[in-house]
């Protein structure tokens, strides 16, 4: 069982972070960055995040795992069909990767290869079913596996999405398809998170709240314009704008959000975008 699975099962408050593979083959900064992480249970390894082509998430996750960092492998439906996704999951298992975050994936329009043909052969619910099937010993064609993988599959959710009931229908489907934990989009407001967690209570699936470290008002506006599903509310943008030291204000905002997560959720997922050294300060 992965540490993440154990700690969540044991009711411990977990901390996850994320690392993006390089554009190119130089793994040193990513491996180095992972080594320096403190107080983190597992690290998400992103998969062509924002539809920008990078080294494969599986390759970096395998390296991290072998150098002793527990990973959460992100896999999207955008770039691979059902055969490639199954192959990669079996490959991940062979490298000892257990934690998965199975995603639809941002549309290719947002990235650096907008002319690529999007795949979306499966959606995230179907991919969770696929992982559950592999764990039960058969592939999607019903053929038996020689060596059965063990996974701890997770899914993503935007707790502030509207219409709420529509979003939550899909959460219910993801749980039915085998999602054992959720990691959320960046959380910016207490109210929507509280409402979401109240709806989650009967499902008994742990939720790790997404916390984004914003360094400036400019960055917040950029995220609003360019990252699907991220909507930094105007009052927060103003706080960053009016602050003498925007980075310190961003840290303060992140700390408040971690506080809400401690009150409502089972963990936090810290998106520090290159400022991993600030993680202890965010958790303090």
């Amino acid at each position, binding site marked *: 069982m992965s540490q993440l699975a154990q700690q969540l099962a044991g009711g411990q408050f977990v901390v996850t972070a994320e690392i993006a593979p390089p554009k190119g083959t130089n793994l040193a900064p990513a491996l180095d960055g992972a080594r320096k992480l403190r107080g983190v249970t597992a690290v998400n390894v992103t998969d062509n995040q924002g539809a920008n082509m990078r080294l494969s998430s599986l390759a970096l996750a395998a390296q991290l795992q072998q150098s002793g960092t527990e990973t959460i492998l992100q896999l999207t439906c955008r770039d691979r069909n059902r055969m490639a996704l199954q192959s990669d999951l079996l490959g991940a298992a062979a490298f000892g990767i257990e934690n998965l975050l199975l995603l639809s994936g941002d*549309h290719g329009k947002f990235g650096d290869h907008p002319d690529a043909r999007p795949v979306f052969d499966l959606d995230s619910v179907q991919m969770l079913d696929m992982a559950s099937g592999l764990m039960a010993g058969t592939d999607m064609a019903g053929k038996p596996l020689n060596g059965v993988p063990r996974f701890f599959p997770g899914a993503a959710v935007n707790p502030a999405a*509207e219409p709420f009931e529509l979003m939550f229908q899909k959460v219910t489907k993801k749980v039915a398809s085998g999602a054992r934990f959720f990691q959320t989009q960046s959380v910016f407001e207490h109210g929507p998170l509280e409402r979401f967690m109240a709806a989650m209570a009967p499902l008994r699936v742990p939720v790790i709240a997404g916390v984004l470290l914003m360094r400036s008002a400019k960055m917040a506006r950029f995220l609003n314009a360019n990252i699907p599903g991220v909507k930094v509310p105007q009052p927060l943008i103003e706080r960053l704008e009016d602050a003498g030291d925007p980075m310190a204000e961003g840290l303060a905002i992140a700390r408040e959000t971690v506080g809400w997560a401690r009150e409502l959720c089972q963990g936090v997922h810290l998106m520090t975008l290159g400022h991993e050294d600030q993680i202890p300060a965010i958790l303090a």
Partner: protein
Amino acid sequence: MIISELKPLDELQLALSACDKLFLVGCAACATACKAGGEEEVFKLQEWLATQGKEVSGSVVIDEACHIMRAARELRHHRNAVQEADALVVLACGSGIQSISSNVEKRVVGGLNSMFLGNVRRFGHYEEMCSLCGDCILNETAGICPVTTCAKGLLNGPCGGMEDGRCEVDEEIECAWRLIYERLQKQRRQGVFARRVPPKNWSRRRQPGRYRLKNGGR
């Protein structure tokens, strides 16, 4: 209908650089309706070709250019003019262009780019609502196609990019799943939300498509 548009003129210019005399073909069906290959557009093409120093040996607008036998018949009617030409220029969808190219030995230059099977919102506004997947889910989705009108073709509800019910790919467009959800609610039924939709059977859409009516259509 099939929505198509005229290719960029510099691309056409290049494709026609080795040809002096041309026979023009339009289509009276879709290409006429979307103002890409009807009488009017064939005439405009002829005028443009004149400015390029090209000669036109004749022209025809075929009833439905995708009908291979009908295209053959029309080309036979214009045998001499076709014979005279160095190439045929076809203002029809890719299907129509291939009816022509399968009926003549001569070079065929397609003048249009074919885009999608489109509904007409109002004159000159076309929207893709069906992408011919071969396994229709509309009866469960309140008559709104997620395969086509969701930018990712998702089958089990909206992605994380939906913002206030709008699509992450184009905020002018409403998320297909929100529309499906609202219409099902109005109809007081669960529809597609009652089950987890399994992965799509894409073998239904194996290309190239072939279909024959049973008993020869009788």
